[in-house]
């Protein structure tokens, strides 16, 4: 540790102080973007978490330790996520007039969902660090490879908002997974045209060309539809881990 400190003083490197139980596998993966320090669990607590997860799991419940290898790197591990924000019932602090209006609105929306008379739906989707507004029949192109076969169907689950002519539903930040289905199909997997990256310095014979080709995948949206009505509790068997 003293040798590292000397180099830091001379060369102004960024040296991070490592905790005692830091594993070597994660140290290697940190170069390529591992989890932040707050999410790295020390070894003593990690072992106890595994035991409690195996012990307390119900027969139908998914044990993340079995599904994904390293529990510390799984972003869906509920032990590592911050506390869930549970919003209070929206109907609590309403006056009788407001409650009447809200019930009318919900009933009209639920009848439209039951009869499927809402028309064309749009959805706001989060994919590849981008948000897109998408309808049925849309084609869009996404950078980089997705490990999906051509013709394989996908379900896009991170839905931020859904809307039609008469109503829109805004998620805070995401809508429930079991409320809406957005089905897509992988159409095409190509490389882009060669983007020329040219580096040049004045008054020096330095010219460097790079012909950069990026992988692209093209998706088409097959359909957007509702699975259930509003304020219907979903089946507990279908719920894995929802963000309310």
């Amino acid at each position, binding site marked *: 540790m003293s040798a590292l400190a000397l180099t830091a003083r001379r060369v102004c490197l960024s040296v991070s102080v490592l905790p005692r139980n830091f594993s070597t596998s994660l140290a290697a993966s940190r170069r390529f973007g591992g989890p932040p320090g707050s999410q790295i669990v020390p070894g003593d607590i990690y072992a106890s978490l595994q035991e409690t997860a195996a012990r307390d799991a119900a027969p139908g419940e998914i044990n993340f330790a079995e599904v994904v290898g390293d529990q510390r790197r799984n972003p869906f591990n509920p032990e590592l996520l911050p506390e869930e*924000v549970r*919003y*209070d*019932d*929206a*109907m*609590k*602090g*309403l006056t009788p007039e*407001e409650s009447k*209006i*809200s019930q009318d609105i919900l009933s009209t929306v639920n009848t439209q969902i039951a009869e499927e008379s809402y028309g064309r739906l749009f959805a*706001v989707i989060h994919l590849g660090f981008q*948000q897109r*507004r998408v309808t049925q029949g849309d084609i869009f192109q996404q950078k980089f490879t997705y490990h999906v076969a051509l013709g394989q169907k996908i379900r896009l689950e991170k839905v*931020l*908002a859904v*809307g039609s002519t008469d109503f*829109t539903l*805004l*998620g*805070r*930040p995401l809508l429930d997974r079991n409320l809406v289905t957005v089905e897509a199909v992988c159409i095409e997997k190509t490389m882009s045209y060669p983007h*020329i*990256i*040219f580096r*040049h310095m004045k008054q020096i014979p330095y*010219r460097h060309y790079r012909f950069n080709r990026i992988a692209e995948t093209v998706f088409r949206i097959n359909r957007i539809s509702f699975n259930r009505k509003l304020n219907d509790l979903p089946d507990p068997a279908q719920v894995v881990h929802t963000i309310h």
Partner: protein
Amino acid sequence: MRLSLVSLIRAPRNAKVPSKEKLFDRLPIFRITSNFFGRRRNCWSLAMPAAQKGLVRSAWGKKVKGMYSRMLRITRLEAALHPYGQMSYESFAENLAKVNVLLNKRILADFAMLEPRTFKAIVSLAQKKQDMDGETSQKELLTRPYPSDLVLGSNYLKF
């Protein structure tokens, strides 16, 4: 591409025409300058620096494109907020983030253009949250054409 073997064949006998080997090496640059103006299109000593400058400027533009598009969207949202009172874009974005509505600037600008009803609902949401926190001034309240009572209830906007 306007430079071709036909134009070389039709050139006069004493014309200074490059050899085939030279042309092969210079073709990639002439393909970049095929739509430029004047002699920079076909004359090597003028085409080479013109192509280099064009490539350097296109790289600079790609870097700066994100900045410009961000500025454009913010100006569009500022303009879209005018008919709903004197609300500033900063308070609009701040209150939306407090309410956990994490929609993009791109999506919000598209809503303002193409879905004005949802944009009106989003703006009234942010105004309601601003009222609950007590950060609206009397001056701003007077400029609002629609009341913030369109948003029902305050129990779910506390945090």
